[in-house]
């Protein structure tokens, strides 16, 4: 669909809506099916029809199907990103549901959880409903909505979780901000438990991070930039774990960046507290050294930290302390980013680079297997969000990513599907890429070309 302009594409989409029920039959042949949820890792054929996985066997007959040759490719359950900012409503100049899900598909993601720090924020049923209408109309991948914990994300009054749940939110978070007040977060944990919702906390004590713009330490000192101590993250992680313990409820720690946080979560898990955690690829691919050129695409919150932190994050992923890899896809326009480091907004896009960076840093470097990576990027986030994804068993929704683990490519600015181009990885040579993707049995990307 690369040749259609935005509105043409939109009209075209509308014409397609009626035929949503997928009638095509597909046979994916000779691929290495990795389905950790069902303990499968074998060269198998897969038959897809009526939006579902119908058969997974060796040597399935070819008649009446479109054949997709997956020789030397991995057939994985579609990747699930439990932390992205799609910016709709309010900041459609940065990203929309349409462009964001195009980026997701490009990166092998078939499901995305979108964060509520939109303008206005997703803090009431009406706004969530209207967003779900946009999603229904425009999304190429599944989009699951995360509602705000507090009204206006102001950290004061909890939103009505019950009503939000009726609008199909899967979790609550004030992401972008942390909930300062202990009593407010306690109340949120209690209500979320009642409603069967997950609380996702952005962990940052702003009294400690003050007005910092990068990790505190020698590099910040050298650059003359205000530092954000690791303590601003782990002190808040510590609090959240304590409160989750007190309330016997689950809590999910967003974008873990500091080694101390990893250790706190590890201990909490051992003592039986229901804490889960995610990190993002930049927290195990880049260090604070990258800020040395004052490139605002290295400015994120939490900030890039040190080599030791990277090692701790990798170990946390390996031993299961960190359950998921999420993107924290945070689009910002060039206009917003082409300013002084102090003035630039935090965050980078990540949907299109997440799989490659994770494969390079974790699988290539033998920290984990492909199967483990698929657990981190599909099985676990599905489980934590309580969505029926991350599996390829017979009858499951046919959300599938076909991955070429050996595909090398240069990530260029022109190739970016996201509306914003704020990535520190531009012009990097990356390896490992989704080549074809099914969402609900529909082939939405074939041979690296988005086809809806």
């Amino acid at each position, binding site marked *: 669909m690369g040749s259609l302009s935005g509105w043409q594409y939109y009209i075209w989409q509308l014409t397609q809506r009626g035929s949503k029920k997928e009638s095509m039959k597909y046979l994916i042949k000779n691929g290495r099916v990795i389905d950790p949820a069902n303990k499968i890792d074998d060269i198998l054929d897969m038959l897809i029809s009526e939006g579902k996985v119908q058969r997974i066997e060796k040597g399935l007959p070819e008649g009446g199907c479109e054949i997709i040759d997956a020789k030397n490719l991995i057939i994985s359950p579609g990747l699930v990103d439990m932390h992205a900012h799609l910016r709709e409503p309010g900041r459609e100049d940065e990203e929309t549901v349409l462009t964001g899900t195009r980026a997701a598909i490009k990166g092998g993601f078939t499901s995305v959880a979108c964060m509520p720090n939109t303008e206005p924020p997703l803090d009431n049923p009406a706004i969530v409903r209207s967003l779900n209408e946009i999603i229904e109309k425009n999304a190429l991948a599944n989009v699951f909505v995360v509602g705000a914990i507090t009204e206006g994300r102001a950290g004061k009054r909890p939103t009505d979780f019950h009503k939000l749940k009726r609008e199909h939110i899967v979790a609550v978070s004030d992401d972008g901000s942390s909930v300062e007040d202990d009593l407010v977060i306690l109340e949120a944990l209690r209500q979320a438990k009642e409603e069967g919702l997950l609380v996702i906390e952005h962990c940052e004590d702003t009294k400690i991070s003050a007005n910092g713009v990068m990790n*505190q*330490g*020698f*590099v*910040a*000192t*050298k*650059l*003359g*930039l205000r*530092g954000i101590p690791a303590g601003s993250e782990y002190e808040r992680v510590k609090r959240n774990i304590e409160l989750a313990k007190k309330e016997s409820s689950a809590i999910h720690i967003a974008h873990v960046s500091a080694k101390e946080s990893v250790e706190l979560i590890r201990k909490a898990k051992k003592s039986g507290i229901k804490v889960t955690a995610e990190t993002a690829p930049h927290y195990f691919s880049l260090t604070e050294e990258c800020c040395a*050129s*004052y490139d605002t695409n290295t400015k994120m919150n939490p900030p890039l930290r040190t080599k030791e932190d990277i090692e701790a994050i990798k170990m946390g992923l390996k031993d299961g302390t960190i359950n998921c890899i999420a993107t924290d896809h945070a689009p910002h326009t060039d*206009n917003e980013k*082409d*300013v*002084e*480091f*102090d*003035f630039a907004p935090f965050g980078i896009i990540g949907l299109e680079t997440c799989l490659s960076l994770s494969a390079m840093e974790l699988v290539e470097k033998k920290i984990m297997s492909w199967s483990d990576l698929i657990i981190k990027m599909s099985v676990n986030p599905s489980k934590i969000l309580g969505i029926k994804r991350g599996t390829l068993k017979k009858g499951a929704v046919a959300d599938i990513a076909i991955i070429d683990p050996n595909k090398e490519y240069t990530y260029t600015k022109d190739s970016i599907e996201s509306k914003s181009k704020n990535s520190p990885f531009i012009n990097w040579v990356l390896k490992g890429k989704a080549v074809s993707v099914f969402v609900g049995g529909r082939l939405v990307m074939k041979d690296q070309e988005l086809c809806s």
Partner: protein
Amino acid sequence: MTNEKKMVWTKKDIIGLEYLSKEEIEHILYTASSFKEVTTRQIKKVPALRGKTVVNLFYEPSTRTRISFELAAKRLSADVINVAVEASSVRKGETLIDTGKNIEALKIDIIVVRHDCSGAPNILARSVKASVVNAGDGWHEHPTQALLDIFTLKSKLGRIQGLNVSIIGDIAHSRVARSNMWGLTKLGANVTVCAPKILIPEGIEKMGVKVTNDIDEAIRGADAINVLRMQLERDAAGVFPSKVDFFKQYGISEERLKKCKKDIVVMHPGPINRGVEMSSGVADGQNSVILEQVTNGIAVRMAVLYLAAHAKRQ
């Protein structure tokens, strides 16, 4: 300063001493010594930048640095324009890069930039073809101030290698301190920084300097001290020691000076808070080279402008 070296200058921008080699710093000092002679002539002007235009783009108020750059440019026969942009973190309108490109469209050769954000000159230099000279950015660098400090020190003591130099005061928020640390350590001096704990930034020792909170330790055996200005106006949080306390604990008084080497060189980048960082007696005393620093600043800035303007671009 007769260590003539054959060098082709290739840096279009002079952003910080971190980014210059020992040889490049020495070349600037050598060139500055030639320009110093020009400033002693009756006609203090040479045509080296005739037909070139220098813009002083100042996002932060500064009188002495701007005057020094303006004079340096004028003594090289350049045309000079001063642009003062309102200093505020919520500036409305044009971005730094747009401002830079607009200035460049006026066919300007050198932009001298002073900015309250660290790294602003780095960002500007990437965005324009004109030369960018840093006149101080945030807490990051103030290369010409450090160069003139080092130039003055070398004129006084004949060398930098092996000298014991102590930098005293608000290290955390000082671009002068950072540039001096880079420059002095590259030229082989033993550098000590001294301040109350709260004004010592994390990891500063990795710049190859000794750190102490004890003023007497810092001045004992020092060949020179560079006393920083206490930026009391920046103490929004009210965590700095009071003026009186600071002078008692860290100020350079005549009594304290008596404990130092007799011919210790006393420097200060100005403007001085008399009775806070140092007493008037010290500021005006025979060890003080504060006014020579001001004079040398012009020669150093002439050298920097001349080299940046004539850089052989790759």
